[in-house]
């Protein structure tokens, strides 16, 4: 079930892994009727020391729910979260969080506006190690701030969140998470609310934490370009299901699932071969469709209503997982039907136009 190459997976057990986790939320209506939102279905992901796994998908694809299950804010409806191969359900969340920390998407909401930076770090250090003296904690707090490139650290200790920029806040949030000495960092779209000009620095920071401290990172994003920049492995989610995964170069260069292809093609890329501009490719946004309802997901493959390659079988049966080599896998009927090369043969938009033509004729 790993997205990492076999070489690595064989050597070590993953620090943190989700095994076939499913999360259903029950929504109660005003008149007592209830419906089930299938936020995540049978998702699996492995996080290894010193590696970054990116989870890519559009809004509402279940990325955040997956991260929050890994952070144990929600218990999965079925499936298990394993920390060092041991089910996490038995452990107190308090000790669990000594190993696993989550970085929230919104740096403006994840620091209490009434407390100084010092309070956040000091509490974290104190909870982590009660024996530390006040001066030791101060020193450790400054070190943490400098580790996330807030230098000189002393200048930031007495600042309130509103005195910091979005990027600085996110760094403080990361420093706070690092204060408890975690082995796994879950980033829930950690850069999506930051100014474009500082995103790269944040990605470099994550990369440095991975390299220097050997942290296992989960990087959630809707932007496949940033995933390509920083991660080792990519998992693509669509409507609560994982549709494709593998080493990033494989997945991005040779998408094995039509949805991944759509994602890759809709992200701007100056290197992409081809004369068509993005506007020409996707001039008719409506034709691309929109994500399905998670209360009544489509039967069969959840992507079939939007898929230009959809067959009769896609409408009724969920596709099985197919390995396409090199740790790269996808869930798509095209691989079972021997039509895999069709994905690479054309662009998504062209395939879509082709399908529409067929429907009309």
């Amino acid at each position, binding site marked *: 079930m790993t997205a990492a190459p076999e070489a690595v997976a064989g050597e070590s057990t993953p620090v943190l892994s989700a095994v076939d986790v499913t999360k259903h939320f029950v929504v109660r209506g005003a008149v007592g009727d209830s419906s089930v939102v299938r936020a995540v279905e049978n998702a699996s992901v492995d996080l290894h020391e010193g590696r970054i796994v990116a989870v890519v998908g559009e809004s509402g694809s279940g990325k955040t729910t997956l991260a929050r299950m890994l952070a144990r804010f929600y218990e999965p409806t079925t499936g298990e979260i394993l920390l060092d191969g041991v089910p996490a359900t038995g452990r107190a969340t308090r000790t669990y969080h000594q190993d696993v920390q989550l970085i929230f998407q919104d740096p403006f909401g*994840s620091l*209490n506006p009434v407390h100084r930076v010092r309070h956040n770090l000091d*509490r974290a250090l104190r909870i982590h190690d009660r024996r530390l003296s006040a001066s030791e904690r101060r020193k450790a707090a400054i070190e943490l701030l400098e580790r996330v490139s807030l230098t000189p650290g002393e200048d930031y200790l007495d600042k309130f969140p509103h005195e910091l920029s979005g990027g600085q806040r996110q760094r403080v949030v990361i420093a706070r998470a690092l204060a408890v000495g975690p082995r796994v960092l879950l980033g829930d779209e950690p850069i999506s609310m930051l100014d474009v000009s500082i995103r790269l620095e944040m990605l470099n920071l994550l990369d440095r934490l991975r390299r220097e401290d050997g942290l296992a990172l989960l990087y959630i994003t809707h932007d496949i370009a940033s995933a390509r920049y920083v991660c080792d492995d990519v998992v693509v989610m669509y409507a609560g299901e994982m549709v494709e995964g593998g080493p990033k170069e494989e997945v991005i260069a040779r998408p094995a699932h039509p949805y991944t292809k759509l994602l890759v093609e809709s992200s701007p890329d100056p290197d992409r071969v081809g004369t068509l501009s993005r506007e020409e490719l996707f001039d008719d946004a409506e034709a691309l469709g929109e994500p399905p309802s998670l209360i009544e997901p489509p039967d069969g493959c959840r992507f079939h209503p939007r898929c230009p390659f959809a067959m009769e079988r896609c409408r009724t049966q969920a596709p099985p997982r197919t390995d396409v080599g090199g740790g790269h896998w996808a869930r798509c009927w095209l691989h079972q039907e021997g039509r895999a090369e069709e994905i690479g043969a054309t662009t998504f938009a062209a395939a879509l136009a082709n399908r529409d033509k067929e429907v009309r004729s």
Partner: protein
Amino acid sequence: MLPSLWSNPKVRFGLVVVGFFTALAVLGPWLTESVLGVDPRANDISAIASPPSAEHWLGTTQFGQDVLAQLVAGARGSMFVGVLAALIGTALAIAFGVTAGYFGGTVDHILNFVTNLFMVMPVLPLIFIVSGYLRGTGLWVIAVIIGVFGWAGGARTLRAQTLSVRNRDFVLGMRMLGESHGRLVAVEVLPHLVGWIASMFLGALIGGILAEAGLAFLGISDSGSISWGSMIQAAQSQSAVLRGIWWWFVPPGLCIALIGTAAAMINFGVDELANPKLRAGTRRVIRRTRRAERAVAAEGGAA
């Protein structure tokens, strides 16, 4: 925070008045004995129901008691009931509202049920029954009764506010560090409710003073103690209104109105601080703006 509160004229008025009455309540006995040299309970037979004079600044009652001395002593009684009732009410509101909002689930169901129960209870008849049952009601008991029956509305407000704060990312973030629930409530959530709690306390203070006056007027009070309510009640029972002894009931009435206004003023000020849109332009700001406009116009004319 404090300097900006003080710079607001409404708050300044409110604070001065509340401070004045608080001082009166604290220094009351010393003031009446040493400064005025009158015992508020002493009957001066030579001056029965006499209008304000040099000797009795606010006149005397039907029983020959000095109204000013009674007013000062009454400030202590009324403020005591108001503050104690507000303290009890606010503490209960925080305990029920914040706990229910923070923990949710079954805890919320139970606490919310109790809150709703207290909300729909007919408070006034209940107070009659309870105070009738506890015979010989002192001000202390009155305050406890008012506090215990008056927290439900505040608890609902705090519950709603807590619900919105506890799911904010910073609470989750601190919880992830391993903070205990107690600290999360006290250090992360409560500071966001301070404005609500302050205004609730001031509201409860007015409510407590008014409730005490109302109960005293209806005859439920400690006959031995003096409060503004019991003064008005005594004036009423001696038909002071019909006989034109206005100096007996107007001063305590005014005091109640004044402290109510003052507390409301502080509340307005706190609201304005929290929501700058409510702020009205002060005369100073308007004058400064006009002066700037004139200066610009003069410069334009010269050029």
